[in-house]
């Protein structure tokens, strides 16, 4: 039995005060709550132990302070992290003695623990409050606004942040499914998995399909090495994804949804399972949702470690329990998807944007970003950079702003050489082109792709030929084997690159490498093969001198290739 909209409102009112308390930034008040990040990165820096230790210390001191688990704040390089509310005082890099220190000094005595406050990398002194940290200055958090603010394992906290009210609105308003599709169309939302297909168009095609059975699949097979935004959304705000799926289901007339998750993300799977169970318990998933005649339920399909399963046709085969081998498109999944029924496949971040678009209106969304790329984009920042972590920025911001302002530049004494975007299907943007705005078309123009949003920063200690070899080894390993050029050609490319990095390459090798890269692109069936050689093509385009140095001078400028280090 589903709860009613007035029950939903009651839950919201009941839990709102404690959330509001967390939004009062920058003033010191008697502490009432401590939020501890327990997402994957912080967990491995001891987030879980910190959570338990804080609880123990608070109990021993007899204080009346709640300790709450949250998702990712984004500043993963600082783990483990705790934020004291009201006021949002940020403590980072907390060691095992830190919990006792925070409990005694701050929670009991009301004084800040100086040695655990954030110290700016650029020597600007301490920052006490979360919002003062330069890392957040150029960000605009829409999808991540709840991540780090609410407990992802408590549906009530999501409801207190207006969660499930977008769903209530579409079910209650006289507007039919067609209006929902139209709103998503007008918002200009494009697929965040990387290719950027207009989401509203996809929904429109699916809604136009005949037949009672349709499916919604959330693609959470984030296989790109160096990308972790989908994981962070699922770990920090799983209900937003479920609500997005519900709205998609209503818009196109589907009754069943599946989240296809990578097995490498056990915590994301666990939190998603909890979220599904809690939503089912309130009747927000199931039959007759919120007293309407709309039925929709969600289940999890587990991926098992195959990069190709991020490709939608391979994903479908995998979700049905087969080997993940792609097939020819058309027919597209919106016509023939799961069990040959019309199926929408949207990326995690795409779906997580939907509730906010419905709540605030498509015009609000379309006002962010650029002409062709609306809204915000989440990027994961890793590699040779001071501030690693997860950021959400308006589309159109330049890569230079991301890398130098938010990321605070390379480690001391290094120079940034390039930024690799789009993972194994993308390419390297050299340092001199970093002013490129981040949107689908501009990135394509410089020979890379938006991709899912992994940014790997490379500096003068990285060898671009070696990096190309790394990506090609990855592609060789992950090729499903259906197309000859992808199965055999990529291995051959790896062999040539291996020779070059060993100092045995010739100028003929370079020519063959380029020809082969184009052949692999032209003769492969799916996106994996078509884009597999991109890292080679883009590094050859921008870093030809490094290839020449390896082949002609028998020298590796970055000093990475051991065989060439004299």
């Amino acid at each position, binding site marked *: 039995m589903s709860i009613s909209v007035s029950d939903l409102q009651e839950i919201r009112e009941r839990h709102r005060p404690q959330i509001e308390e967390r939004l009062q930034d920058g003033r010191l008040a008697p502490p009432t709550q401590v939020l501890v990040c327990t997402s*994957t*990165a912080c*967990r*491995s*820096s001891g987030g879980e132990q910190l959570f338990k230790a804080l609880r123990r210390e608070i109990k021993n001191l007899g204080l009346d302070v709640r300790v709450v688990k949250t998702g990712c704040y984004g500043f*993963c*390089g600082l*783990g483990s992290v705790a934020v004291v509310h009201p006021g949002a005082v940020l403590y980072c890099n907390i060691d095992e003695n830190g919990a006792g220190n925070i409990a005694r000094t701050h929670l009991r005595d009301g004084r800040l623990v100086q040695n655990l406050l954030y110290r700016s990398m650029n020597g600007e002194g301490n920052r006490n409050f979360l919002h003062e940290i330069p890392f957040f200055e150029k960000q605009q958090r829409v999808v991540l606004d709840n991540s780090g603010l609410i407990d992802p394992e408590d549906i009530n906290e999501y409801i207190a942040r207006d969660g499930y009210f977008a769903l209530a609105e579409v079910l209650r308003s006289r507007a039919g499914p067609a209006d929902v599709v139209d709103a998503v169309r007008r918002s200009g939302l494009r697929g965040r998995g990387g290719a950027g297909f207009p989401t509203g168009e996809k929904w429109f095609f699916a809604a136009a399909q005949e037949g009672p059975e349709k499916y919604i699949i959330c693609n959470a097979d*984030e*296989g*790109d*090495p*160096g*990308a*972790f935004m989908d*994981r*962070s959304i699922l770990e920090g705000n799983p209900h937003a994804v479920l609500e997005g799926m519900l709205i998609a289901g209503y818009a196109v007339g589907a009754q069943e949804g*599946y989240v*296809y998750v990578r*097995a*490498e*993300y*056990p915590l994301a799977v666990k939190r998603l399972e909890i979220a599904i169970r809690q939503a089912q318990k309130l009747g927000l998933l199931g039959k007759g949702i919120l007293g309407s005649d709309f039925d929709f339920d969600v*289940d999890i*399909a*587990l*991926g*098992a*470690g*195959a*990069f190709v399963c991020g490709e939608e046709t391979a994903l479908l085969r*995998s*979700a*049905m*329990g*087969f*080997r*993940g081998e792609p097939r020819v498109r058309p027919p597209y999944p919106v016509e023939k998807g*799961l*069990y040959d029924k019309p199926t929408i496949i949207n990326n995690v971040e795409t779906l997580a944007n939907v509730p906010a678009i419905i709540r605030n209106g498509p015009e609000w969304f379309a006002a962010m970003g650029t002409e062709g790329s609306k809204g915000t984009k989440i990027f*994961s920042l*890793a*590699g*040779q950079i001071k501030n*690693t*972590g997860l950021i959400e920025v308006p589309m159109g911001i330049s890569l230079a702003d991301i890398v130098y302002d938010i990321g605070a530049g390379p480690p001391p004494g290094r120079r940034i050489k390039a930024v*690799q975007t789009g*993972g194994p299907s993308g390419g390297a943007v050299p340092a001199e082109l970093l002013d490129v705005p981040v949107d689908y078309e501009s990135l394509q123009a410089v020979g890379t792709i938006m991709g899912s949003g*992994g940014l*790997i920063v*490379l500096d003068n200690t*990285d060898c671009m030929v070696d*990096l190309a070899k*790394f*990506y090609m080894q*990855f592609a060789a390993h992950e090729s*499903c084997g259906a197309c000859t050029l992808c199965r055999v050609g990529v291995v051959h490319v790896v062999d040539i690159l291996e020779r070059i990095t060993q100092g045995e390459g010739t100028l003929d090798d370079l020519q063959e490498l380029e020809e082969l890269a184009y052949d692999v692109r032209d003769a492969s069936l799916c996106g994996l093969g078509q884009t597999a050689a991109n890292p080679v093509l883009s590094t050859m385009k921008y870093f030809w001198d490094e290839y020449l140095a390896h082949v002609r001078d028998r020298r590796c400028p970055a000093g990475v290739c051991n065989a060439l280090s004299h």
Partner: protein
Amino acid sequence: MNVEERNYLVLDKIIERYGDRPGGLIRVLYKAQELFGYLSRDVQTHVAEKMCLPVGHVHGVATFYSQFVTAPQGKNVVRVCMGTACYVKNAQDILNRFRELLGVEPDETTADGLFTLRTTRCIGACSLAPLLTVNESVHGHLSVYDVARLVDRYRKEGPDEEVSPVEHKRQRPARDQRAAPPPN
């Protein structure tokens, strides 16, 4: 009833529960691997019979995905992350140090059955690069100098205390199935 028979009973319940859902086979194989430590021929055949699938189909799925293993695993499974962020922070050197110290190649198990060395695809904690997991614990910000310490620690202590019993079982095949040294 011995452990193996009980495991088969548990597996049958799982097959009943997930067998006819989309992607059910993959879930069943996960659970089977959790119960038995790896997917032996017998387990694959059993799953195929119970789910009315050709054995070839089950075997094809079990060998397609990198999460499934068809040979017994060591007591401690070391997975060195080879994602891009880890790679540019010298994950290859860390892997080489393990090869040297343990005397095995990736996907092999040491003769004493204590360690299986594997590589893993990006686990999405790139801020901690380079990293690896031992069983269920993540170790980040590593250098080649940390490897010997880690090996010693797990050689002495075995799997971490906080791992749940089920996960213990996953890492520890029954005594008689301990890995034989690789034939070469």
